[in-house]
């Protein structure tokens, strides 16, 4: 026999089940409609690509004028697809073709469309608009104001895209301000930093000017440690060897916010890569082998392995007993180059003897004994 209570429970359960099924159906319906919408959108872009790309090629062959090309930019998809294609071709072409492609970007329809997209609610639209302005010499004040506003946006992609546009400005002051504002921002991705730095430095005809600005940025306490480290890492690639003294000075002074040792560790690694003879003085003066940060001790051990000389035996003996395995391995490899190696090895605790045999083998291989 069912009690009234059972009936209420059964009714409630049925109602919940019906609601769940209805929700599920709504979700399926929404997903299907969304998929249809996306497919339709994709097809529109594919069609626009088919229509616009041959026109760009014809324009490059002098079979179409800029005005005639402009007349074919009817829908938003045409404008976006044309810009994407032009942007990629400009990046990959040079000479007359590149110059002619750039001329197409001056078409008013592009300017009007992307100016309006700078205020879009969709970050991808805004980022694309920024990329359009990155290909142009921005002289329009309202566009500059908008790009500077976007440089303060919390989204990395928008900040990066706006910076990219601003550092392409023909106005040096605008470029420098945008570059410094970007560097002082927290949580920049290292790839974004690399890209911006390369493009910014490329705008300077005199590499000494770009190097000097970078040198100041490396020592600027308002530039976050991770960004400063990214800047330090790309110095050899940029060939800014005139910054050696700045690197040494920075190693001596450190960074006010370097709470994990990343800044000094990166400096040691880069100076090691540059085989700078002045590094030893600052490592010794600041007792960096005793740093509380593993990254710094590891960088010192690697540096000592690379730049070994008997004078380093003392610090290497300390590092060979380090709590971190990688530090120990590098220090002990370096010590293999020392006459004291076997003595130090015998002094190792029992559980490290096997490890030592391995180290000895790889150390011997490193110095060409095996």
């Amino acid at each position, binding site marked *: 026999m069912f009690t009234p209570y059972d009936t209420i429970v059964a009714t409630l359960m049925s109602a919940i089940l019906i609601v769940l099924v209805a929700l599920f159906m709504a979700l399926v319906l929404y997903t299907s409609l969304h998929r249809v919408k996306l497919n339709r959108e994709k097809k529109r872009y594919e069609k626009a690509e088919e229509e616009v790309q041959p026109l760009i*090629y014809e324009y490059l062959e002098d079979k179409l004028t800029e005005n005639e090309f402009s007349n074919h930019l009817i829908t938003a998809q045409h404008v976006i697809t044309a810009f994407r294609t032009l942007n990629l071709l400009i990046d*990959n072409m040079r000479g007359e073709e590149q110059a002619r492609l750039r001329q197409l970007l001056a078409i008013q329809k592009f300017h009007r469309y992307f100016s309006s997209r700078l205020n879009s609610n969709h970050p991808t639209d805004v980022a694309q608009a920024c990329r359009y302005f990155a290909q142009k010499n921005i002289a329009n004040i309202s566009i500059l104001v908008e790009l500077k506003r976007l440089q303060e946006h919390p989204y990395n992609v928008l900040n990066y895209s706006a910076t990219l546009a601003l550092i392409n400005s023909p106005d040096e002051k605008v470029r420098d301000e945008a570059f410094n504002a970007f560097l002082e921002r927290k949580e920049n991705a290292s790839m974004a930093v690399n890209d911006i730095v390369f493009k910014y430095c490329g705008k300077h005809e005199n590499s000494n000017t770009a190097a000097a600005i970078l040198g100041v940025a490396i020592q600027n306490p308002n530039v976050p440690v991770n960004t400063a480290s990214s800047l330090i890492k790309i110095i050899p690639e940029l060939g800014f060897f005139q910054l050696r003294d700045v690197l040494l000075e920075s190693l001596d002074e450190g960074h006010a916010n370097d709470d994990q040792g990343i800044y000094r560790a990166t400096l040691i690694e880069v100076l090691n890569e540059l085989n700078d003879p002045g590094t030893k003085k600052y490592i010794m003066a600041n007792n960096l082998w005793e740093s509380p940060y593993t990254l710094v001790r590891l960088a010192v051990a690697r540096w000592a392995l690379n730049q070994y000389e008997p004078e380093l035996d003392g610090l290497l003996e300390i590092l060979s007993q380090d709590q971190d395995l990688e530090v120990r391995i590098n220090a002990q490899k370096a010590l293999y180059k020392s006459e004291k190696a076997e003595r130090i090895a015998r002094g190792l605790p029992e559980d490290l003897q096997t490890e030592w045999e391995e180290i000895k083998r790889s150390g011997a291989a490193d110095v060409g004994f095996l």
Partner: protein
Amino acid sequence: MGKTILLVDDDTYVARFIGFKLNKQGYTVKHVDNGFDGLEIMRKEKPDLLILDMMMPGLDGREVAERISEEKLMDMGKILVLSGKEVTDEVKALFDLGIHDYLQKPFNMDSLLMRIERALDATGP
């Protein structure tokens, strides 16, 4: 019938433009956007020339060239490499494998066409 050129480049927009220009010059162009498909075609067909991009996801240009050399899929002198990099050790290694030439991106279309003609002339029919 024009000579066949296989173009392996993940940058579809650039590849389409190269294809358009080469078609105009009378070449038959096949384009694939990754190294795996490129090797698959090479195993079945023998293009007269291979234009190979260095930087691609999956198999990069160097790996594709190495496999072509290992499997002897074509005369290495029929390979023209497009690269975003300057002459690095990686590019030097490709020259050691015997590639015909390389062209750095961004490039001039006329330079590419000239190199293609030279590569085809050098390697014969």
